[in-house]
């Protein structure tokens, strides 16, 4: 049991909206753009301002500093100014004495908007030259020359839809005035420093005038990495002007409309193999639907490029990526960060080429798995690759051949029910692809009673990073668990932090914690006569000897480099591997499916907390399954989100979860590149969810072998039904060779 779990099950964990309300608290509400694209000709806030209980309305013209919050490209105003670029874009922030009055007043704001046509399709945007950043290509080998040596070449199109984070706690922030014009923000963010930095720019205050604190998040999954910022800054803007505390907690449906989601991708592929079943050449083009502003899209595009060949070695590859500007809410980080989209394209191409060549798909996969020394298209050479090992172990441990025989037998004897299997290998690079972000700090205090306080930049959002930090501190200092407290995340104790993201939270902050604890340990053990003492005695001796019982440490991941001109480098500290075996059953009468089992071999290095890691594998798997199956964002042709509540946007529930999930951690895996030989865990297992797509596809093809498949996700009951009993596939797939 993790320390936080005690509070969770008693309902005593506090989230932003649960904090005791400070005296004089005001509540915020948002007026946002009702249209996807237009010129903002005028704004009338007079009726709203006159509404009961209203204390202020803030628009672009009320911003004392710079109206800009774009983290990578400076293309995103906090509040719309002159133009609106997506439905839900914030225009005005209304502050009143109750939530109901703030909302009622926000509904009275009137905007005169001259509507303009919107673009919602990334391919259309690219054709119109609407790009967030210049397109990028990474390349290895001689692609153009390699096609002539291929015996089978396939090409086609793959589409994957976006995905709503659906953190159970909606976005929320509360700001309060401090003396001297300073202020504090309790923000529901993965990136306290990002909020502090953006707040500083918007308010025109030094960063030192803004304190940001995060106790915990009720789930985030990337959705609060960058997109927690605007709500925190709006509260701060009002607090700064009114010198009153202000809280803004988004309503669920509002949250779904105004915040970004996983990027939809539309992609083209061409893949060729030789007669021996070796991958020879690959060409892929991604059209990333970035939405109306850059947000984190360029970084997400980078990760798609770096994972474009999936878990496989392709000697000749050219991967191009366009980040396309459309009139939808800016899409943002979501567990996997662009890698799942790229890997789904690769797995689709693999399935296609296997069937076109008559090869067994599993054989083809196994033959081409990454091995040590294989070079990825951006020049990184594989080290400690466990792809072959985990694939082989999954096949053997879970008796893949036996399962295949059982499924074949089942399909031969059942007319309306069919089963399908898939093996899904995962390979995921760990580190922020932006080298600068790979640094972290820790501040550790030992109090005179021997208790220990650890502060880092890591934000606890359910992923268990606190538990890992505690394990590291306990292990390094040699103290029992109950002596160690993990502090809330505050910009005043650890500064200039990177967001807790990229599966690197424990790697970076854990290593910094280890360094700080080692420093303290060294100071204490260096004392004369210290060796024979208990911890409490040692601490007392340290204090009376006037030893500094606090230590601050900083860690920067070594050996990382990337040359963006050459598109070559070593952007990752290491890779995580694993393989999932998925079995599903399709009801061919009703066009529905059940996931029978998912059995996973996963490389977690030497786990710092095996229970936490198992929970991460199971949770990420389910999110991956949701993305591939039932979760579907639905928009009107005017760019209005239609699936904007839990009645219309469905994430997997208990009943939809596999009857059985077995996770086996690969044994004897060292990893000198991360703290205590552990490995990042948050994102890689999401890739296993892709296996469900291909297992359902196998089952469906057992019912309709002759029909063309359209590589489009999510594979909702509707898409499955249209394949089983409807007219032909909607997107053409071409076969050569």
């Amino acid at each position, binding site marked *: 049991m993790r320390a936080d779990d005690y509070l969770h099950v008693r*309902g005593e964990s506090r989230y932003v909206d649960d904090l005791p309300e400070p005296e004089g608290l005001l509540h915020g509400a948002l007026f946002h753009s009702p249209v996807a694209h237009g010129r903002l000709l005028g704004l009338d806030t007079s009726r709203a301002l006159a509404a009961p209980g209203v204390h202020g309305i803030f628009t672009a013209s009320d911003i004392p500093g710079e109206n800009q919050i774009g983290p990578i490209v400076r293309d995103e105003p906090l509040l719309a100014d002159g133009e609106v670029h997506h439905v839900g874009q914030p225009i005005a922030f209304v502050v009143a004495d109750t939530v109901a009055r703030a909302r009622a007043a926000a509904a009275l704001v009137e905007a005169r908007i001259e509507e303009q046509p919107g673009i919602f399709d990334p391919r259309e945007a690219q054709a119109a030259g609407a790009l967030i950043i210049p397109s990028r290509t990474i390349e290895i080998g001689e692609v153009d020359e390699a096609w002539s040596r291929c015996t089978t070449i396939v090409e086609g199109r793959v589409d994957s839809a976006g995905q709503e984070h659906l953190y159970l706690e909606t976005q929320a922030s509360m700001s309060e005035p401090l003396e001297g014009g300073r202020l504090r923000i309790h923000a529901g963010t993965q990136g306290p420093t990002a909020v502090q930095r953006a707040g500083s720019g918007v308010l025109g205050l030094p960063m030192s005038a803004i304190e940001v604190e995060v106790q915990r998040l*009720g789930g985030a999954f990337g959705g609060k990495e960058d997109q927690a910022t605007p709500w925190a800054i709006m509260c701060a803007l009002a607090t700064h002007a009114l010198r009153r505390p202000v809280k803004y907690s988004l309503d669920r*449906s509002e949250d779904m409309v105004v915040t970004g989601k996983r990027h939809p991708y539309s992609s083209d592929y061409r893949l060729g193999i030789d007669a021996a079943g070796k991958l020879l050449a690959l060409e892929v083009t991604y059209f990333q639907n970035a939405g109306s502003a850059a947000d984190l899209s360029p970084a997400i595009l980078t990760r798609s490029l770096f994972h474009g060949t999936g878990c496989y070695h392709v000697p000749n590859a050219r991967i191009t990526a366009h980040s396309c500007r459309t009139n939808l809410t800016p899409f943002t980080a979501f567990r996997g960060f662009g890698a799942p989209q790229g890997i789904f394209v690769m797995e689709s191409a693999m399935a296609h080429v296997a069937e076109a060549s008559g090869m067994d798909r599993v054989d083809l996969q196994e033959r081409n798995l990454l091995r040590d020394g294989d070079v990825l298209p951006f020049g990184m050479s594989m080290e400690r690759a466990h792809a072959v090992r985990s694939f082989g172990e999954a096949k053997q441990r879970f008796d893949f051949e036996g399962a295949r025989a059982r499924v074949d037998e089942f399909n031969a004897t059942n007319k*309306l029910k069919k089963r399908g299997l898939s093996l899904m290998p995962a390979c995921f690079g760990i580190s922020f692809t932006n080298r600068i972000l790979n640094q972290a700090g820790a501040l550790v205090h030992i109090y005179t009673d021997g208790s220990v306080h650890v502060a880092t930049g890591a934000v606890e959002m359910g992923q268990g990073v606190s538990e890992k930090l505690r394990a590291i501190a306990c292990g390094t200092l040699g103290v029992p668990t109950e002596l160690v407290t993990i502090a809330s995340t505050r910009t005043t104790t650890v500064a200039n932090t990177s967001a807790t993201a990229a599966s690197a939270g424990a790697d970076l902050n854990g290593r910094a914690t280890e360094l700080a604890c080692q420093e303290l340990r060294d100071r204490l053990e260096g004392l004369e006569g210290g060796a024979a003492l208990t911890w409490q005695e040692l601490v007392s001796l340290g204090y009376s000897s006037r030893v500094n019982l606090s230590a601050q440490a900083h860690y920067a991941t070594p050996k990382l480099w990337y040359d963006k001109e050459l598109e070559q480098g070593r952007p990752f500290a290491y890779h995580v591997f694993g393989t999932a075996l998925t079995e599903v059953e399709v009801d061919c009468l009703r066009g529905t499916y059940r996931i029978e089992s998912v059995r996973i071999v996963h490389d977690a290095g030497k786990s710092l907390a095996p229970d936490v890691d198992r929970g991460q594998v199971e949770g990420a798997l389910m999110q991956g399954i949701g993305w591939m199956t039932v979760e579907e964002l639905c928009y009107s042709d005017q760019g209005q989100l239609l699936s904007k509540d839990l009645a219309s946007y469905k994430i997997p529930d208990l009943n*939809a979860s596999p009857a059985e999930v077995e996770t086996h951690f690969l044994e004897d895996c060292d990893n000198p590149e991360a703290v205590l030989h552990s490995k990042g865990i948050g994102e890689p297992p999401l890739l296993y969810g892709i296996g469900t797509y291909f297992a359902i596809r196998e089952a469906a093809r057992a019912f309709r072998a002759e029909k063309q498949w359209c590589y489009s996700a999510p594979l909702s009951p509707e898409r499955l039904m249209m394949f089983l009993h409807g007219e032909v596939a909607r997107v053409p797939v071409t076969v050569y060779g």
Partner: protein
Amino acid sequence: MIRFLLNDTSVELERPAGELLLDTLRGPLRRTGVKQGCREGDCGACAVLIGELSGERLSYRAMPSCMMLLGHVEGRHVVTVEGLNPPAGLTPVQRVVAEEGATQCGFCTPGVVISLTSTLFGSTTASEAELLESAGGNICRCTGYMSFRRAARRLAADFGERPQDPVARLRELIQAGVIPPHFESAPAKLRKLRGASEGGDQPAGTTSSSADYGIAGGTDALVQRRVATHIDTPHFHHRPQGIDLIKMESGDCVLDASTTFEDLKRSETWRTIDSRAVRNMDLVASQLIRERATLGGNISNASPIADGVICLLALGTELELQGPTGSRQLPLAEFFLGYKLTALEEGEIIRRLRIPGGRRLRGFEKVSRRERLDIATVNSAACFELSGANFEGVTLSAGGVGPTPMLLKGAAAHLEGAAATPDRLRGALEIAQSEVQPISDVRGTAEYKRLLLRQLVLAHFVEALPDHGFEELCL
């Protein structure tokens, strides 16, 4: 003045009866263990235990506090997670949830604890399946639910066989630490509260003025007014006390309009109408919602895809409507006049439902994006018998394929009296297509809904008559 028992304390509030229970609990009462996840009954984070006094004893059910108004809990026991907490340490349910890793970010967790605890109250078996079903309405985005399954398995093993007698069961739960000792004094406290309340409940069946907002379980009404913090002038249609809600009356099955879906699922009488009631009811919403949602509400809301209505239509249900000047009978099939438009006149409410004797539900089919806790894309129900080799008594209903729930009269007529053969059924399926007019919306394209209708009507016959070769129509 609203009076109820909150955890171990009686509360009297000068607040409107139309205020959302969730808002009162989190706001003025500061029970922040109750979480707000969606405000539409679709996540379970705000679940609380509601104890209701009937005779000498209290029975407890888990319900979503976002689907209830203050007026709903007048004179009842409301238990939040704070009311389960021992002074220090954890209850067995809390311990199992924590130890099996069924909590990560913690936001859905209090609701999960409430749901699982409710099963230990209500069930004499507390099987793994029952425990899982009770938590089926608790959406978790972190864990992937495997830990929920582990927790349910362990609780079933620890609490498998329970005393039949509810009082003994309560004592045992207190002894085991599942609930704190204050539960024992709850009935006495509630009786005292009831004595104190002037008027109490509005008498069942009173008519309302047209300005009032009639509300029964609230699971549709409150979803439609999701963002609102209260309903101005609610008129509560409370469940009548001390009568059988579901009973046989001269061969007919008669149901009170306040019958909930969970009542149906539990009713032995209903099982004589629908032998697959447990499977069928599990396809409707979640247990949390089924405890609230009533048949009367399901009908009067007039949604084109109402699951209950689809079953009742096929069963040939007659409605008893009561208005200011008296009551009248109306076949359910004549109740829906258009999209969300009903034959209810001003001040009129649905009192009772009558299912003619001898009707048996032969099939209920529903496909939605997610199998559970979802709104049907298309649903359908069927009644039919075989007389020799021929069909008789055929009725087919369908939802999601037109502006109202509907009977497929042409398709049913084509089968009536005809031989039960694939050819005949093929003809009926074709006729059904001519009877419906689905539209494309967020639940699916019109094209898909047509296909689904065909498959679901076919499914009734494939399932009920497996040896008649109907499956060839699917290949």
